[in-house]
């Protein structure tokens, strides 16, 4: 028995080792190919890191952390570093639709440089409405040139939902006043891959929240295409960087879940990684903001934490170079990586069981109690009438059979 297990373990280990060897070979081949194919970088990453004061050592540490986040074994550390150097050579067209630009802001605004942000800055962005200097017809010409120069080669990154109502006319862009739907259809049809940044482009987010007057939808839904969804409001830059690194290393997008989110980043729930989880299982909950539980860092379940319903890796990679993340800072997760979270996760600071229907106090439990009350009243009334009727008919106690 035991020997059998040992044999099976050994076989498994061998198989895994073989798989890794195969992956390493594929990865090296693809990185070589990319080296030949991609346009060269104006300023290599090493120089950029140096001028920002990031040491080689921090960069190597970053590649180790990113390798682990991507769920790859340590042999991939040097390959992740190599892919990071190629990162800025992937041509990118970055589109903005119905959104607040918060995702771009989150990616670009940092108090001090960290490697993820610097890598993002090396991105060879051919077109980005917030960042580019060009405007009007000149901007449109830039977009057209990018589509001409890199057909089928560039990555289309999209921020923002697409209003589909009124023929898409709720959103028109640029000097020619084209609708978001038209622009999106044209650009995505020529892209090597479409990556949706943030919950708006992934699932519609607040624009699509009830009653959704503009009939806004995520890109995949609106256009009927397959997209890679880096959801979150805002999403973690690590999840975007990691996905592009995977593309550079293996020539394909990473495996996705049924909602188009990379499994390496969105495969487990907040609740599964949460550092407050022991308090959840022990029964130690924050009952109101600022109480002893809050000071002791207890579980935020009763303050409406939606970690148990939310697939994301915030607890693992955290934000701002791993400094903190929402639950660490003391507020529950609000489920921002899930479709329609404004509707499904409401009320945001109360447990899911306290959702109200049609406003007021109508929670499931209050409706249930009311129905139980009506049922009880019905039972009492029925019992009473039955009793009175039978009292009056003492002689005929037995009901008659029909057949």
């Amino acid at each position, binding site marked *: 028995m035991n020997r059998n297990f040992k044999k099976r373990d050994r076989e498994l280990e061998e198989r895994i080792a073989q798989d890794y060897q195969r992956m390493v070979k594929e990865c090296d081949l693809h990185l070589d190919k990319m080296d030949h194919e991609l346009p060269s970088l104006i300023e290599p990453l090493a120089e950029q890191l140096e001028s920002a004061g990031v040491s080689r050592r921090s960069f190597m540490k970053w590649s180790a952390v990113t390798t682990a986040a991507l769920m790859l074994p340590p042999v991939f550390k040097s390959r992740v570093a190599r892919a990071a150097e190629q990162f800025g050579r992937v041509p990118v067209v970055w589109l903005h639709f119905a959104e607040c630009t918060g995702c771009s802001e989150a990616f670009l605004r940092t108090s001090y440089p960290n490697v993820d942000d610097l890598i993002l800055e090396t991105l060879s962005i051919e077109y980005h409405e917030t960042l580019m200097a060009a405007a009007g017809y000149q901007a449109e010409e830039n977009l057209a040139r990018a589509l001409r120069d890199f057909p089928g080669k560039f990555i289309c990154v999209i921020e923002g939902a697409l209003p589909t109502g009124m023929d898409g006319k709720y959103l028109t862009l640029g000097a020619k006043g084209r609708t978001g739907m038209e622009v999106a259809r044209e650009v995505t049809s020529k892209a090597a891959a479409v990556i949706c940044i943030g919950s708006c482009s992934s699932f519609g987010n607040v624009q699509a929240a009830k009653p959704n007057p503009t009939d806004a939808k995520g890109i995949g839904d609106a256009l009927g295409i397959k997209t890679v969804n880096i959801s979150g409001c805002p999403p973690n830059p690590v999840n975007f960087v990691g996905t592009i690194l995977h593309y550079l290393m293996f020539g394909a997008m990473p495996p996705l879940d*049924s909602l188009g989110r990379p499994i390496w980043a969105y495969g487990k729930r907040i609740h599964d990684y949460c550092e407050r989880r022991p308090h959840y*299982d022990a*029964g*130690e909950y924050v009952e109101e903001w600022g109480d002893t539980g809050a000071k002791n860092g207890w579980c935020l379940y009763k303050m409406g934490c939606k970690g148990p319903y939310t697939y994301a890796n915030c607890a693992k990679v955290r934000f701002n170079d791993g400094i903190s993340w929402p639950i660490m800072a003391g507020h529950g997760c609000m489920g921002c990586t899930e*479709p329609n979270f404004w509707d*499904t996760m409401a009320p945001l600071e109360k447990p899911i069981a306290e959702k109200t229907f049609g406003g007021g106090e109508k929670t499931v439990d209050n409706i249930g109690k009311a129905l139980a009350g009506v*049922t009880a009243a019905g*039972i009492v009334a029925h019992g009473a009438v039955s009793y009175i009727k039978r009292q009056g008919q003492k002689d005929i106690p*037995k009901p008659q*059979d029909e057949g």
Partner: protein
Amino acid sequence: MLKFRMKKEWWLAIRLIHWSVVITVFTLLISGFYIAYPLSNGAGATADKFCMGNIRTLHTFFGVFLTFLMIWRAYLGLFAKFHARWHDLLAWTNIHNLITQIKFYLLVSEKKPKHEYQYGPLQSLAYSGLILLQIAIIMTGLIMVGANYHAGFSTGVGSLLKPIEIAMGGLAGVRLIHHIIAWGFILFIMVHVYMAIWIDVVYKEGTISSMVSGRVFRKVD
């Protein structure tokens, strides 16, 4: 003088299932509502406590037990050669009988409906509804169990049910629907217990004891 004849109404397997379901559903109701509104306990060290963890384990255990009871009952209903088979759930299709039954229950008429099936017409409707409730609560429950574990059988079931999870609006929707159905069980139990008592009193056939002994007393003319 009235004469009664004893009749075998419920086989042992059905009685066993019935009372197992009673215990299981009560445990699930109590543990389920505890999970929805857990109590905070600040005394002692975190590492020594596992209250919520244990109650969730209990709930999951009985949830999976309920799933197996349901499968067993479905097997009996479909393949076993005795009463309480699946077509007894069709008693309501005799609309005339159904109306007679409703009038009788509403105390409008004294006429009893015909004894065609194991269940009365309204009873068959109520039990069909209960089966649907049970399927729904088991499916939503299994989706949540699947999300709680990351390997093994439940994860497999969880990924099979993934399309349903997404159609319900993610795990939050699944949880809410699970909670709503839990109330369906409470309402069902209230009416079910009352009707059992009422019929026991009115028919005098020993309805309640029949679920224990298996026998009812049918009147002989």
